[in-house]
């Protein structure tokens, strides 16, 4: 899935400029880090891609479709092709690990047999199959994060938006999550990952887009967390 931002500005009423004049092209199969301090506009940019936020100016197109012009029904279909790892997890505490993932396939009308197979596969991939009958509050932080990733990739999306997927995790667990995201990317999924984790960005080198006060201030292939960090 390729993404194109053209002169995108987002102003939250009355006058908070979240994004300003963003031009960005992300090609199919790329892995892109979005870095920048808290409140710089990383989350807003990601929300714009799934039309959770509508730009005040400019336009965004995904696979050639201008997001502003798609209908509500088309938006639902479009979102099925995007996996989202939410910053705040948004797991459903009254559903088991298995049900939290199965739920995504139910809303698109998959048959129970197909759901059982696909959920088992994805839970095994992220390494929490043995926890399938537990509820989210019974999981550790790392396991919850894996569950969120499992939910995001179960529908085999073309694009994965990961907002701080390693926040509050130790480096060892963050490493495991990162390996998981890289393997998803290697399978052909475009990954956009917002992060504050300099260790990961500097260790697993990929394209880095830095945002400061709503503007892109750096777009570097194989970049580090800070500008001019030597390889």
């Amino acid at each position, binding site marked *: 899935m390729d993404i194109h931002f053209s002169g995108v500005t987002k102003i939250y009423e009355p006058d908070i400029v979240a994004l300003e004049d963003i031009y960005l092209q992300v090609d199919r199969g790329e892995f892109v880090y979005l870095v920048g301090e808290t409140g710089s506009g990383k989350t807003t940019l990601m929300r714009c891609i799934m039309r959770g936020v*509508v730009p005040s100016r400019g336009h965004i197109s995904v696979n050639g479709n201008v997001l502003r012009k798609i209908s509500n029904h088309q938006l*639902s279909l479009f*979102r099925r*092709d995007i996996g*989202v790892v939410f910053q705040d997890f948004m797991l459903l505490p009254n559903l088991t690990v298995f049900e939290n993932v199965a*739920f995504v396939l139910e*809303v*698109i*009308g998959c048959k129970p047999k197909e759901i059982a197979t696909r959920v088992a596969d994805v839970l095994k991939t992220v390494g929490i199959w043995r926890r399938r009958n537990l509820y989210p509050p019974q999981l550790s932080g790392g396991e919850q994060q894996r569950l969120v990733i499992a939910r995001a990739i179960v*529908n085999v999306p073309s694009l994965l938006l990961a907002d701080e997927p390693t926040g509050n995790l130790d480096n060892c667990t963050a490493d495991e999550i990162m390996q998981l995201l890289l393997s998803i990317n290697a399978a052909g999924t475009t990954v956009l990952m917002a992060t504050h984790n300099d260790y990961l960005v500097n260790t697993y080198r990929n394209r880095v887009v830095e945002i400061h006060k709503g503007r892109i201030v750096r777009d570097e292939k194989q970049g580090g967390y800070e500008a001019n960090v030597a390889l």
Partner: protein
Amino acid sequence: MKQMSLFKYVLRDGFRLVIRHLGMSFLTIFTAMAVFFVVGISTLFVLNVKNIVVMMENQLTITAYVVPKADIEEIAKLIKKMPEVKEVKIITKEMALEKLRARVGDQAKAVSLLGENPLPASIEIKVGKAAQVSDTAKMLVAISEIEDVVFAGRVAEKLTRVSNFVERFSWILLFMAIAASGVVLFNTIRISVYSRENEISVMLRVGATPTYVMMPFIIQAVVLGFTGAAISTLLIGATYYSAISGLKDMMPFLPFIESKTLIFKLAFMLITCGSLISFLSGMFAAQSFVSRASKPL
């Protein structure tokens, strides 16, 4: 096939919602039941009153006495031409005497003491509606050959007034009952919707259509409304027939409705009405939330 699976999931979720909020579900079913019971009973009351009015209207007659030597048959023809008049019958002097004899029964012999038949010939006139009795009587008085007119004017007018009032009151009651059950159902569904706030938010983000998100809530509302209305019809059936058998003993001269078809029709109407109101309440409650949740910032 996908549609079939989706339908199964929304149906399952709808019933899950009913069970998840069991206390609220009972309260809503009870309210719907009470409301539809009142509506059903008041409908039966109105139908019975109307039935009585129709019966009494059929018995409402105006008796017109003609002047002696007037051609009674000509006058009868003239009266029959009036648009309000349904039936005209000439009562000869002999027929009047027979009627009197029949009415007095045991004292019939006393009638012969009257000697020559003193009773005048008359015309009995039936009109279409009770409300028309008074006006028709005034028109009859205007005919010069008619000496006197006797009719149950006040009874007719009162009966019409009661019938109109009951009908109007029952309409008001019906609207109030529908509004009350609608509001209760709307609030129950709104509570359910808010209890699934996170779930709805995730659903919309992973590509659920607004219709899919709304459907379980609509099913929940219809299940509650339908159950309430169905229980109320069972109660109406039971109470109505026991009330009718009691009333028939007390007032055997009144024609109460006992048709089972009518009760089935009423049950069908109440259940359809209950399901429709709950469908609309559920839809509005879920739609207002879902459209807000799916609106981009």
